[in-house]
């Protein structure tokens, strides 16, 4: 069957479609005296030109964005195995909840007594996340993972300072996500890179040699960015704590262990969670997400204020931590996203959450098992919720992982994360997530195998 219109053709911009005098807007009729701005605002410089915003009718607006959307991939359209992103199904019930007028129409400066529902929800969420991470105190201000990193590092800094201990460095593994060192730099720390062993795990001996009384902390993703669980995490924690340094848990890969292993039990002192990964709030093409930070008791006094408190009379309110580092957000964080995350936790509960991580890990291992002979895994340790293969073997055919990814697009697949982590040559990082079917995984594995075969047999197919 033919299809109408070419979705490959460039869509004109909304400015191309604009015509002077067209309009979509309508405003309530003015039922008070209309003021002349020059009279109402004597002495104030007024604008003489209007910004050149697009001028279109409402239908043209709807068409433009409908057509743009049709030129975009999303989870709703197909498989999205982007490693380190947990592109799982975003339940629609979360959208329904967030759109309830009671949540949607609440003003950020409404008095506490008018915001009891949201305050209770946040308090509830803090309890649930506390249970899952093993860290009981939360701030909800961070708007994303990296914002959480910055927050967590500031907490570490405040903690040390408060003890008169001005530490200077943060250790980050060489496999870390770029935001880790960037956050450390933004927090005024010198970044010390800790090498990984050939199998991709932290080289604990090397780490031990790197740390001293100037070390403020270590940032770690566990499972790490190779999808491998840092099995020596207890020793790592010991090494850090021995010199008085704290451990930061980057929660980007929490989907692998949620409900099964808790960062608090591993020895971490502070964690951020990416609710737009683990708890399936929609990514929206690059946000909004939310990056709540949870801490153990000893870091609680430093949390950004205000935090949610439950009063003796059972009502909820705001309270200011005694040694707060101060605000990180102009309001209270991405509360609408936290509402969605809360629905996800409620829907899954104690039984559902450990099942999610199990199936996420199963799906990754299942794909890995089907492609590892042609796209070798970086490590022999079994992967968790994602695996990193190397496409270095294709180079001898003059084919790069970049070409493989373009070919995947031809075959109808969104490519995996590629060229990350940096320590793996021609890295291909596949995270299927738990919401994909076995059939989808089989087809995807077959597509990868087909491309590897093509690379050997007809590399020109891939190179252009």
């Amino acid at each position, binding site marked *: 069957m033919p299809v109408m219109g070419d979705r490959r053709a460039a869509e004109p911009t*909304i400015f191309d479609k604009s015509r002077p005098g067209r*309009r979509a*807007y309508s405003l*309530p009729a003015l039922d*008070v005296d209309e003021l002349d701005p020059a009279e*109402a605002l004597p*002495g104030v*410089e*007024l604008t003489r030109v209007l*910004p050149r*915003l*697009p001028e279109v009718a409402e239908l043209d607006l*709807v068409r433009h964005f409908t*057509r*743009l*959307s049709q*030129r*975009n*991939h*999303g989870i709703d359209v197909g498989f999205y195995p982007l490693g380190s992103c947990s592109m799982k199904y975003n339940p629609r019930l979360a*959208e*329904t909840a967030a759109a309830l007028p*009671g949540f949607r129409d609440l*003003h950020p*400066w*409404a008095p506490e007594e*008018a915001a009891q*529902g949201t305050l209770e929800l946040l308090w509830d969420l803090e309890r649930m996340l506390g*249970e899952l991470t093993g860290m009981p105190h939360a701030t909800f201000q961070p*708007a994303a993972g*990296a*914002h959480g990193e910055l927050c967590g590092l500031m907490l570490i800094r405040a903690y040390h300072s408060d003890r008169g201990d001005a530490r200077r460095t943060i250790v980050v593994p060489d496999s870390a996500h*770029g*935001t880790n060192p960037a956050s450390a*730099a*933004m927090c005024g720390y010198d970044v010390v890179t800790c090498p990984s062993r050939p199998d991709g795990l932290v080289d604990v001996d090397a780490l031990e040699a790197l740390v001293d009384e100037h070390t403020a902390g270590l940032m770690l993703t566990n499972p790490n960015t190779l999808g491998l669980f840092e099995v020596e995490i207890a020793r790592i924690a010991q090494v850090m704590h021995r010199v008085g340094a704290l451990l930061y848990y980057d929660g980007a890969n929490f989907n692998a262990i949620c409900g099964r*292993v808790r960062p608090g039990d*591993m020895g971490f002192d502070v964690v951020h969670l990416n609710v737009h990964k683990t708890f399936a709030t*929609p990514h*929206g*093409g*690059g*946000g909004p997400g939310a990056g709540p930070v949870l801490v153990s008791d000893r870091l609680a006094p430093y949390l*950004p204020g205000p935090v949610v408190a439950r009063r003796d009379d059972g009502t909820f309110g705001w309270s200011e931590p005694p040694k707060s580092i101060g*605000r990180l*957000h102009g*309001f209270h964080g991405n*509360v*609408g996203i936290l509402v969605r995350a809360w629905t996800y936790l409620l*829907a899954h*509960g104690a*039984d*559902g*959450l450990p099942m999610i991580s*199990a199936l996420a890990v*199963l799906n990754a*291992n299942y794909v890995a098992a089907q492609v590892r002979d042609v796209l070798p895994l970086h490590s022999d340790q079994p992967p968790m919720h994602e695996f990193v293969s190397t496409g270095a073997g294709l180079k001898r055919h003059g084919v790069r992982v970049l070409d493989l990814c373009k070919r995947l697009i031809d075959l109808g697949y969104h490519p995996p994360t590629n060229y990350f982590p940096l320590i793996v040559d021609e890295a291909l990082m596949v995270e299927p997530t*738990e*919401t994909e*079917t076995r059939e989808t995984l089989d087809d995807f594995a077959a597509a990868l195998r087909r491309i590897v075969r093509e690379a050997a047999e007809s590399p020109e197919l891939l190179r252009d």
Partner: protein
Amino acid sequence: MRFAPHTADDIRAMLDVVGKPDLDALFAHIPDALRPARPLRLDAGRSEDEVLRRAGELAARNRVGAVCFAGGGAYDHVVPSVIGALLSRGELLTAYTPYQPEVSQGMLQALFEYQTVIAELCGLPVSNASLYDGGSAVAEAVSMACAATRRNRVLVAQSVDAPSRQVVRTYGHPLGRVVDELATDPRLGTTPVAEPGDDVAAVVIQQPNALGVIEDVRAWAGAAHAAGAKLIVKLDPLAVGLLPRPGEQGADLVVGEGQPLGQGLSFGGPSFGFLACTDDQVRRLPGRVVGQTVDASGTRGYVMTLRAREQDIRREKATSNICTNQTLNAVASLVYLTWLGPLGLRDLARDCLSRAHHTAALLARVDGAEVAVAGPFWREFPLRLDVPDPAEAVRALHREGYLVGPVVPDGPAAGAVMVACTERRTRADAEGLASAVQRVVQGLRGQVKGAA
């Protein structure tokens, strides 16, 4: 309830392929000592209906029925229905950051268009693709200015909203940044122009400021530049329907909170922050920037530019760490601004002016209430109430069905209550507020007398 598709058969067959006897075996290499000693203390999972019922109960506990005269960075403007209808489309809602341009042209083009309208509103040539919120946008701009000037002291007007000032402090503290405040003129509510010292990286003012009053951006730009400092303006984006765009008036960096641009309230988030700057500062822009390109076949296309600055690339020397930001909200603001257009922007700004001045006049007639500033205001103004505790007055007004606030926390108008009038606030709303204020002021005055 779970969303994974696995049947028992699927799991068995897949475990066979993987070579594990059961699901727990997938975690066998994790040391036992790390496993929690006790089962999770969480409720069992619930069905969709049960989750939504509980959500409905909590939502109903928020009392959102009051007529909204509240301001302080979040306003009850019209949010046209098209925004929700378009932004809920799965291709936009469930996409990741457009790392793969071939399959992300829709989002990339939308962000490119977003940048274009934001730059246009700010009167500056360059915009990024969004920041977390207005508060962190001010902090990011301060970091840019410090990097550009290699100075580490900033002057922030006290008339910048308090949360933003706090965020600037929080961000600056670990970097040893000195943040000083510029006092507010007690009568006018504006920030008197004065030359900053030559150690100052940037002056930060807000337009209109947190008291609702219009600042003299042009004069401040002159003063800042004379000292080699940058002028950062935190802008209410709807104000440029009436006021000149700060970039035209000499601002080097224009940032702001995107909430007024079609974002709804939702307790202050998600919304977004915007940031625009002059050409020379492009390489220091935090976050993402989308650029136009032409592909091999000559077709116009869009890509994330400055990829060397993206987060999957190691950057110990970074001045920004932003990865996930507020894309969907930014796109919502593009839809909103397309809906509004230049004429709507003008009409809306003028309607707010007329309504706010009308409301202020009504309130000024109430015994025990007065507008706390004499300077020119647009949509919002501080109202001083003759009551012992303004927070109690806000609560009392809320019980009367009117939401006002926030209470001004410091400066000459401290204790006044902010009152904002969007295009949605009718004459009847204003009259209702005025009589509620009258009742509340009388009641609270009386209480004290009664107590005394």
